[in-house]
């Protein structure tokens, strides 16, 4: 029990700063950025909008936990599904901290770090293109007013009287921070239990013994371990049982699909969409790995 609690709480503590950052960004978006402006910037969800949204992930250093409240807020503001998903999938994997940590972990192997980020970008854009239509639209009521109804407002006659901006900021911040901390708590507990059922060292050993299974096993490890995208490169490097391609698959899949994200995505997008998204993203990672293998890169 002590060990279970310590391992679970360690995941939550590690994610804490990113959740606070994500909740702060979400609150700033809610209070200061009009929904119409966001919808205009994000566009109608065409391929170019999706590509731009994925590239926007480079400038915001938030990991996969912190991005969820931001994306939930953008969705509530009516941002089109395509750019929204591209940003969700790309931001945790292509941002500068992730690139730098991959570079450091793999001993200044620039090609590997570039391949990691470029592959993540491709998967984000591909995933957004394939999944945009599958995501149910935001409830008309929420889209109309530009936020959900735990927004901290006294009512919806805001034009008449709104609380001061700082008061609305803290109300949104507290609500978002607690929601995401709650999802992370469930996700961290699930990750600890699953890591117990599927010991990572044994899965890595299996990948070493069966090279053909190395890529899917690398993805399975990423899903089970639920490591922060800003540190996952060190874990991948230590798994010498994995081929470089399987290490890349680990690094591509982890930031977009793991146990804690399963809980978080389910709360924001619904279970059915989450399952579909994970399967689609897994297919894209496998396809990209296959293409690289055929091209003779990173085998």
């Amino acid at each position, binding site marked *: 029990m002590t060990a279970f609690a310590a391992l679970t709480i360690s995941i939550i503590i590690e994610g804490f700063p990113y959740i606070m950052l994500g909740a702060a960004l979400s609150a700033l978006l809610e209070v200061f950025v009009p929904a119409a402006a966001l919808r205009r910037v994000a566009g109608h969800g065409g391929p170019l909008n999706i590509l731009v949204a994925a590239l926007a992930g480079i400038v915001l250093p938030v990991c996969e936990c912190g991005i969820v409240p931001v994306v939930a807020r953008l969705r509530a503001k009516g941002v089109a599904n395509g750019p929204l998903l591209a940003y969700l999938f790309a931001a945790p994997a292509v941002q500068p901290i992730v690139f730098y940590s991959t570079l450091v972990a793999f001993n200044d192997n620039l090609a590997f770090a570039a391949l990691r980020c470029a592959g993540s970008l491709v998967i984000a854009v591909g995933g957004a293109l394939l999944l945009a239509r599958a995501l149910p639209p935001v409830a008309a009521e929420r889209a109309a007013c530009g936020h959900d109804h735990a927004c901290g407002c006294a009512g919806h006659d805001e034009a008449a009287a709104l609380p001061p901006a700082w008061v609305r900021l803290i109300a949104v911040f507290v609500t978002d921070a607690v929601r995401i901390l709650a999802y992370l708590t469930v996700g961290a507990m699930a990750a600890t239990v699953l890591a117990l059922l599927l010991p990572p060292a044994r899965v890595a050993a299996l990948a070493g013994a069966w090279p053909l299974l190395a890529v899917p096993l690398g993805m399975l490890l990423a899903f089970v371990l639920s490591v922060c995208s800003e540190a996952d490169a060190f874990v991948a490097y230590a798994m010498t049982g994995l081929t*470089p391609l399987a290490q890349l698959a680990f690094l591509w899949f982890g930031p977009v699909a793991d146990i804690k994200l399963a809980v978080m995505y389910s709360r924001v997008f619904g279970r059915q969409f989450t399952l579909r998204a994970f399967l689609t993203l897994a297919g894209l990672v496998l396809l990209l790995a296959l293409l690289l293998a055929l091209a003779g890169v990173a085998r």
Partner: protein
Amino acid sequence: MNTPRAALPLPALLALALFTAGLARVAWAGRLTRYVAPRFVLPIEVALAGAGVVLLLVLAALLARRVRLQWQERGMALLVLLAAAAVWWRPLPSLAELMAFKDMPLGGVRAGQGKLPPAPVDADGYRECDGQRVYVELDALNDTQIAAHSYRLSLVGQLTVLPGADAIDLPPGALVMARLVMVCCAADAQPVYMAVANRAGFDETRIDDWVRVRGTVSFRPLPDDSGWYAWLEDDEITAIAPPEPEYLQPQLIDLSAVPLSR
């Protein structure tokens, strides 16, 4: 005219306050590195400061009657209270408990250059290794060579019980010392081991004690001839205080480059 008020869920507020206070207590006691890697400490402290400012602002808003407390977000708050309870409890499992829980097999991290580090030599001829690298290097050497024979070493570790110790056929009385290598948090920690001959007759029942062992490295074959394991012929075993941080950090180890094709 009524002052416009923002709605604030009271259960969420209490849960966030309790979690933040518990984590601040852990940080204040300098125990964050028991749970996360040192590079996460500063972001956590900054986030704690930010959360503290928000909670003070909430207090100010309450006093100024700018917020209206509501009984919402109860389920979410309950889950966060669970996490807050764990943070206040501050569970610190022993190394042996952690290893047994995670079913960590023999081997652990294998990512070395196959060379022992050029550590400084003390007055008695022992290399003063801080443990950041030597375990990993010795582990990598196990299967490959025995070039490290006669390397005199001063090494820090925690006495432990090795899961599957029978598989390496440890001689009677021998000890195993270990360090955990943590990448980002305790959930990903993996052990690296060193078997110690225990010529000093150190009491075996003192599991989880931190010790410094000074001795000479050699290697012993695995019973099935599949390789070797590192073995320290001790000259001296001394009980010491736990080092800070207790975990090893692989990114501080000078690892070899990995080519894109192996």
